[in-house]
């Protein structure tokens, strides 16, 4: 996984083509990066099923899942409330405020639940993963693990990926339900939509496909977020223009930004594949 090895070779001829050369360089770097991430992810996913991983995974479920539950509840509640408020004012123009339940539930279950949960968990737990592993890297604790013949991927990375795969769908379900309750609070309690109609619409419009597609998204996001955040932290020492504490900061920032962008890209891809 030595991804910058080729750069230092002296036998590479100097650039002749001002436009083609940087393009090729960027492409090779991208493919290198993708390859490194894939190998990193494959190895870590494989390590999940090694013996004596369960206690580590439980610890990570606590720090990734349980400690994110509160913020997910808060964000879910307000997202549902805003949806109720906004959609009500649109729907009431067409005289169909009764379908508020469908609109809120479908947009939460299919789209907003998985995406917003993933982004909130990235902000809370993903950044922590990158920073924690990054500072372990720069303080040579990962090298110490290797010295003690403990595989750092197995000990540090794979429990985090496993815990994310467990936690993301659960947090998404929490988000969906609290969001539907939020829509109930604004739609029914404040704006006076019929309570029975709201829940009838919620129940009749949401199909099993919507729910499975939401959970598929949650699992995909879990793998993306945990892999990217761990990867950025793990290779903190490979940062080109910084080292030490500054590199940890840069790794954390790039982990969060990259995760958020990839969440949205993957969301589009998964949605179009599942349609």
């Amino acid at each position, binding site marked *: 996984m030595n991804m910058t090895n080729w750069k230092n070779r002296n036998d590479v001829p100097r650039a002749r083509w001002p436009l083609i050369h940087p393009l090729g360089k960027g492409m090779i770097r991208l493919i290198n990066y993708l390859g490194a991430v894939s190998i990193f992810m494959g190895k870590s996913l494989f390590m999940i099923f090694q013996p004596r991983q369960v206690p580590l995974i439980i610890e990570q479920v*606590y720090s990734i*899942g349980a400690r994110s539950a509160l913020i997910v509840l808060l964000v879910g509640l307000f997202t549902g409330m805003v949806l109720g408020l906004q959609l009500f004012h649109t729907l009431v123009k067409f005289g169909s405020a009764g379908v508020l339940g469908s609109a809120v539930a479908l947009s939460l279950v299919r789209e907003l639940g998985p995406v917003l949960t993933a982004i909130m968990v990235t902000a809370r737990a993903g950044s922590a993963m990158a920073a924690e592993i990054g500072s372990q890297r720069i303080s040579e604790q990962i090298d110490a693990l290797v010295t003690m013949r403990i595989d750092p991927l197995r000990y540090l990375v794979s429990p985090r990926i496993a815990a994310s795969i467990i936690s993301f769908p659960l*947090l998404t379900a*929490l988000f969906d*339900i609290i969001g539907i309750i939020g829509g109930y609070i604004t739609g029914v309690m404040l704006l006076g939509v019929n309570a029975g109609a709201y829940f009838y619409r919620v129940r009749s419009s949401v*199909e099993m496909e919507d729910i499975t597609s939401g959970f598929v998204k949650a699992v995909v996001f879990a793998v993306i977020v945990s892999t990217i955040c761990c990867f950025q932290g793990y290779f903190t020492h490979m940062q080109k223009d910084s080292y030490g504490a500054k590199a940890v900061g840069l790794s954390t920032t790039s982990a969060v930004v990259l995760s958020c962008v990839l969440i949205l890209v993957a969301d589009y891809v998964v949605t179009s594949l599942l349609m």
Partner: protein
Amino acid sequence: MKKYHYETVAGIFVLVGLLCVGYLVVQLGDVRIFGKDSYTLSARFTSVSGLRVGNPVEMLGIEIGQVESLEIDQKNQVAVVTLRIKKGINLYDDAMASIKTAGLIGDRYIGIDPGGGGEILKPGESITETESPVDIEELVKKYAFGEVKK
């Protein structure tokens, strides 16, 4: 106050999460855990325009089942609709199924008049008397070109 052990908190989190997943799947996703509490009947229509799989089947205004599948019978040039009806609700062989619309632009549903005489329909049998949906455009066209005679 003693601080809870992180494993306990993780356990509670997973439990609550699973409850939410269960609620979503069972309540909203309509997954039947206990299986066979329904039977199927079929009905043939000349047109099922607007009808989709999963639309409700109502009797006397009460939902008693769903549309399970829509197929074309090419030999007889009719649409075959399979209905999944709750167990315990009996339809007779003079029952009539008609495709109706909830409100002016609402969803299509199948309304069933249970009938009264004759044999009770067994699972897999078909409802013979059917009524296809009213095509509003067609009606307007007839009215506009004066084909309505009354």
